[in-house]
């Protein structure tokens, strides 16, 4: 999986992912996310537009990130979920817990 982290305006960190998020790739994502969360970043948006597959390991990574961000009253938005990935969030009833945006513009508006 390719992971790119960019800092946008107003201190918003955008995490750009490409590839499947499964038991093999989720540990590296967890490591990268832990690095930025530990810097006390206040706003993170995650682009899932190029992630065609997620399993319970991938979901667990986002749940962990969500919990850490929530503790510090920080903001996390996931956007551009592909149908298969959105479906997994819905099955786990996480679509009402996470802030999910249709695209980057909407995600930025949620955290601005």
């Amino acid at each position, binding site marked *: 999986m390719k992971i790119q982290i960019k800092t946008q305006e107003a201190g918003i960190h955008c995490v750009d992912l490409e590839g*499947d998020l*499964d038991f093999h790739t989720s540990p590296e994502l967890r490591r990268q996310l832990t690095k930025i969360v530990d810097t006390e970043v206040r706003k993170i948006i995650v682009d899932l537009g190029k992630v065609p597959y997620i399993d319970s390991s991938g979901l*667990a990574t986002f749940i962990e990130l969500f919990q850490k961000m929530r503790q510090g009253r920080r903001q996390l938005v996931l956007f551009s979920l592909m149908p298969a990935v959105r479906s997994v969030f819905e099955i786990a009833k996480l679509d009402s817990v996470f802030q999910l945006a249709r695209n980057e513009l909407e995600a930025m508006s949620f955290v601005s």
Partner: protein
Amino acid sequence: MVAKTLLLTSDAAQLKSLRSQLKLLLRNAGFTAKSQESILLAVGEGVTNAIRHSYGGESGHEIRVVVEDLKDRMVFRIKDGGRKIDLTQLRMPQLPPERGGGLGIYFMKTVVDKMEYNIHRPRGNELILTKYKDKKAA
């Protein structure tokens, strides 16, 4: 009945290749995109469980995914030779979950039509997932 065996080892890096091979079989069997997604998720979770729990995360051990193409359904048998796991004893997660644990089993139970275990297998585990084929539009 046509049966195909996908052979892999308990290396998480092989999960993607397994999904690619499975996808081809599912497409040829006429499953819709949505059903294909469900099966890929369920089988992926089953194989991940074999890697994590049956083999304790150790790489290099054999896992077989036997795909049986029947008239009205497809059956996926995930077989390993590792530690016996009683998945019936695992608790279902609360939903929405506050942690990731237990979601794999929940996904398997939810997205396929039947989830069973071969309790008579002398060694290792055999998880059996069944998905009925999509009815063709009239």
